[in-house]
């Protein structure tokens, strides 16, 4: 639409600027707060411009100097925990779901449809709904306070299975037939043909799932009591509820900025593949 109506242009820009402001302002607040010293917050007002601290807050948070985080581990360690959790969840989900989608689409086995619908039904049961039974299972398996406990219960994914299923069904069946004639067995077909074709989808899913894993709050909160397994998201909330009314906003905001960084890096790094994976169909 190429139209030249000035008031429309103005309105459009106003709406967009408003949108940018709504998204951008909180980030600005967080960024500014992370450079101020704690004394700036005593008045109860958020500073709107950079303070004197510079990277001092970041250094203190990352190394947990003077126990600023109120726990025994540093932010860098917790970011590592978060990273492991997000990576294992994202990779695990992709591996499991691509394999189950492959089985559902390309193999004829008894109760194939039933299997699919069972997987599909789990969409109705996210972690939050089944949290108590899942906790019970993880506890009885002795997986509390471990990376396995943090990640395995979150790995099964109906959404990703469904996405791969749709993609596989859009791959012409003659491709599989050609591969069969070319002497490729099921595993070779998957490795040589299907996997390379799914790269864009995998990338798009990875971005979504990495962020999903990184942002997990409730589950790690529930199953970790050992501070060595705390994730960065958990500690933000702990800081807010810590102490005698003197909330260390500068430390909170510094941690927040740190917690925001990896997802941003993942999105920026995989932007191209991500968009391709969401829009591109057949070549």
């Amino acid at each position, binding site marked *: 639409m190429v139209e030249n109506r000035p008031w429309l242009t103005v309105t459009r820009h106003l709406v967009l600027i408003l949108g940018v402001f709504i998204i951008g302002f909180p980030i600005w607040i967080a960024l500014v707060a992370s450079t101020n010293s704690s004394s700036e917050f005593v008045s109860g007002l958020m500073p709107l411009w950079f303070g004197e601290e510079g990277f001092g807050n970041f250094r203190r948070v990352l190394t947990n100097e003077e126990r600023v985080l109120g726990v025994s581990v540093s932010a860098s360690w917790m970011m590592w925990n978060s990273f492991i959790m997000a990576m294992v969840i994202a990779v695990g989900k992709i591996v499991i779901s691509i394999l189950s989608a492959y089985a559902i689409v390309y193999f004829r086995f008894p109760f194939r449809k039933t299997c699919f619908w069972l997987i599909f039904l789990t969409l109705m049961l996210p972690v939050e709904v089944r949290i108590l039974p899942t906790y019970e299972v993880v506890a009885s398996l002795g997986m509390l306070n471990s990376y396995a406990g943090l990640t395995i219960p979150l790995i099964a994914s109906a959404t990703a299975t469904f996405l791969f299923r749709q993609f596989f069904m859009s791959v*012409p069946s*003659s*491709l599989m*037939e*050609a*591969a069969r*004639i*070319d002497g490729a067995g099921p595993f*070779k077909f998957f490795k040589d043909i299907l996997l390379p074709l799914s790269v864009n989808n995998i990338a798009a899913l990875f971005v979504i799932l990495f962020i999903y894993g990184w942002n997990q709050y409730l589950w790690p909160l529930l199953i970790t009591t050992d501070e060595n397994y705390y994730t960065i998201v958990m500690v933000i909330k702990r800081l807010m509820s810590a102490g005698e009314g003197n909330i260390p906003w500068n430390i909170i905001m510094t941690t927040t900025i740190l917690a925001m960084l990896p997802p941003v890096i993942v999105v920026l790094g995989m932007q191209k593949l991500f968009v391709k994976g969401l829009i591109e169909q057949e070549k």
Partner: protein
Amino acid sequence: MATVSLKNINKTYANGHQAIENLNLDITDGEMLVLVGPSGCGKSTSLRMVAGLETITGGDLYIDDVRVNDLEPSERDIAMVFQNYALYPHMTVFQNMAYGLKNRKVPKDEIQKKVEKAAEILEITNLLHNKPGQLSGGQRQRVAMGRAIVRNPKVFLFDEPLSNLDAKLRVQMRIEIKRLQQEFATTAIYVTHDQVEAMTLADRLVVMNEGNVEQVGPPIELYEKPATQFVAGFLGSPAMNFLDASLNGNRLTLSADVVLELNDPNLPADAHDLDVVLGIRPEHMEACEEAEADFTLSVDMIEPLGADTLLYGYFPGTESLITSEQPGKQQFKRGHRLALRVDRERCHLFDKATGKRLGS
């Protein structure tokens, strides 16, 4: 260098639908056999059963006298060209052609040699490092052919390979396929719904209808002596005209005014008011003087094709629309009354009840 033999092949789907009924075909070494028929006639299913992509539910399939019913497609030593080419989109042309050889553990330098040779034959050497997405339809078709010939299989299988191409390219590739098949003298089975393609490519033609073989033979034989009304109507363009008639000995009554005296000793002599269908091709009705005419056609529609002109009109006294093909140099107008004479030698008679050919 192989023969293919289908013995009482049946295909019944799980839902009980019988796609193929007792199919018997023998394909000799180096022969190009074309399966043709309308969609749903079972021609593709038959081909896919030979390929091993579809299970055979009854009967035996032999390639070179070895029963291959239970062999995987890759073990049957066949190569198939698909309608949508089925090239692997993420591989280069070279990798596409090499994939089958690679899976068969052919040494690398030999693969290189074979692919390059096949590419040379198909004139796609300069495309070897492109991906299928960058190629035109005709080039993709060549690559698909290359993937087939590079393995030097016993049998080529073609599943409507030209139907995604535009008309001009289709003719070009048709000739190319014929040339290649003759050059390699490889046994080939070719499936198409296009009767021109079928006629031009086939050493022998198989016309199929509803899971049954209607007729097998050299294309010209099928064209000149169709065994059933279905074959007669399927082959030839424009299609054959069919007129209901009744037969008494050699007297064919088309309508109250039009009676033809045929001179065919093989017609059933005892025919008495037998309901038959007269088949006559549009090009076998000659324009003539009014006095010699069998009937006059009131021209209702005209399609000038250049070389020929097609004239449509209702056969007098009936509601059957018939087509006449006349040389293109003559000018016609709508409403023109055309005196036509039926070529007695090229009349085809079919039993109305069974659709089978009567007489010679």
